[in-house]
């Protein structure tokens, strides 16, 4: 953590350094290139949205940020991705610790088929974050509260997590992710399997979580990107077409492809 950022020297009155930086990232599945030369920064206190037509590589790029692509044997990542200035693909980086610091919420709610309590407690337990049982209870309660689920489940913490509704399951997954106190949260289309009311709850939740974590959200819903994010990246065919302030992208896109996509010409 004390490492000096060699390539981005910090001036006294410069803005805070980026939480994560990606430079010239290429991703290949076998010989097929899914991501071409993408460079992007992710900041604290901000929600970054990735938009683009399906198959353009949003999920692929998102999964390079916590090395979930390691589980795909054909995937190969080149380029430079840093978390707080540390190269996350370097041999010194422990992938287990990285994934604790960069949490992930998946497209389909995937709670463990265990009790609600166990779902949230699992991460802190394997990382040894709670010394005593009481401490674990606090972590579970705090995480569920921050995920806006506490009031709904506080009386049935021992019920199975899979018995909840889809929207509750997704909030449980968010609680599970924040229980290990990550610095970055990656969300891959977290609302695509949910109804509008559950979606609204998750969006509200993202607003509340913004102050504490750097959040990256993939979405195919442009209104959602406009509502929840401060910065938006538009991907197309594996390349990053445009990246900037969300208000800019939606009102005044620089690229014609972005404009076409936003106005619904394709997608």
């Amino acid at each position: 953590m004390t490492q000096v950022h060699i390539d981005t020297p910090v001036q006294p009155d410069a803005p805070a350094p980026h939480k994560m930086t990606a430079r010239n990232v290429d991703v290949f599945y076998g010989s097929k290139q899914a991501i071409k030369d993408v460079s992007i920064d992710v900041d604290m206190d901000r929600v970054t949205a990735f938009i683009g037509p399906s198959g353009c590589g949003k999920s692929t790029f998102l999964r390079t940020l916590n090395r979930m692509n390691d589980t795909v044997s054909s995937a190969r990542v080149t380029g430079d991705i840093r978390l707080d200035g540390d190269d996350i693909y370097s041999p010194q980086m422990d992938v287990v610790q990285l994934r604790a610091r960069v949490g992930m919420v998946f497209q389909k709610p995937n709670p463990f088929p265990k009790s609600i309590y166990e779902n949230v407690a699992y991460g802190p337990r394997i990382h040894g974050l709670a010394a005593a049982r009481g401490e674990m209870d606090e972590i579970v309660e705090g995480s569920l509260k921050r995920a806006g689920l506490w009031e709904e489940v506080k009386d049935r913490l021992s019920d199975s997590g899979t018995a909840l509704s889809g929207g509750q399951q997704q909030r449980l997954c968010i609680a599970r992710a924040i229980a290990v106190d990550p610095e970055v949260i990656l969300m891959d289309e977290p609302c695509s399997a949910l109804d509008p009311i559950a979606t609204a709850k998750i969006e509200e939740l993202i607003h509340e979580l913004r102050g504490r974590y750097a959040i990256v959200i993939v979405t195919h819903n442009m209104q959602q990107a406009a509502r929840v994010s401060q910065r938006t990246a538009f991907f197309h065919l594996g390349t990053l077409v445009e990246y900037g302030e969300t208000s800019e992208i939606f009102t005044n896109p620089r690229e014609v492809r972005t404009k076409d996509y936003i106005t619904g010409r394709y997608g």
Partner: protein
Amino acid sequence: MTGMVAQMPDRDRKVAERVPTDWKTGAMQTRIRRRYAAERRFRFMGLAAVVLSAAFLAFLLVTMLAQGLRGFTETRLALPIDFAAAGLEVTPAQLEQRGADAALASAGLERVVDNAAVAAFGPDGMDLISDTAWIRVGERLKADPGLLGGQAVIAVPASAGVDLAAKSGDTPLDARVAELRAQNRLTTGFAWGFLTGADSTDPTRVGIWGALKGSILTMVVTLLLAFPIGVLSAVYLEEYAPRNRWTDLIEVSINNLAAVPSIIFGLLGLAVFLATFQMPRSAALVGGLTLALMTMPVIVIAGRNAVKAVPPSIRDAALGIGASRVQVVFHHVIPLALPGILTGTIIGMARALGETAPLLMIGMRAFIAGPPGGFTSPATALPVQVFLWSDEVSRGFVEKTSAAIIVLLVFLLAMNGLAIYLRNKFEQRW
């Protein structure tokens, strides 16, 4: 392209001109009737198949029970003995100490009992009671030493000939047995000796405990070996091994191994464990090792399918919050796959329990008159015992064979019941 464009209006017209379907025509009604008939036919055939298999099972059980239940009983003769007159040189105090059996034997209890039989039943008395009758009398004396000073009527086991005549008839002793029965001196009781004894040449003296204990020891070795190795192989092959030519080869080999006839595993056990490693012949340890070779592929195949059926989203979820791969496997994949793994284990173990041929090959068919002392002492197993007894000439062994089969089936049911209980228990955890 142009051809298609030219066709388009034509096709559109056809769609527009299509007459509305009349669902009430005769052809439609016939189709409905045929559909119902097909459904009825299928239901009938399915039901018939179920009834047929249930009937086979019932037939098996009924014949086994009819034959075998008699194997659990013994015929007894009421034998009056006058201990006071016989002058046994034993004191009541001796009977209460250890070494009472030796004291009774050296005091000539066997002779006393034989004499009492002659006195009670006439000159053929000694042939009517079992050779082990005096042991039963000794047990009575030990339980009640006060009998030594007086007389008592004790129910002693009858000889094999009397037992057979009383149970099935059609023997030279039938008339004599009818006479005894008329005198009310013949009774039937539960043969505890069958549950506690081991093999013997006399059908009234055989017991199943020797073979049952041999089977239990063998199954313990099989389970302790096949289950962990099978589960670890399955998990490694599914979760860790790269997909390449070598793992394909291993997969094919394991699938083939599961189909190899069991006698070949017996030959393998003979060559490897007995010839090469010089392990003891006829031992439960070797039997268990041999059956483990046979059971392991079944567990590996079932285990791989169970591991494969665990949804990848669960693995992603655990990896996504920083679980290591070993943690993913032991915290999530194996618990979720356990019911499936246990099902495979039940099938494999049930097959191993009933297996005779490989055990014959490694010498577990020897005549062993006492229950095995441990994993390395000579033992036999239930199916081998059934095989050996069914080969005996003496008619008394017929019911003992069926009784042994009942014990085997009960053991099998108990094993399966336990596994199903465990499976349900693990399924309920979610």
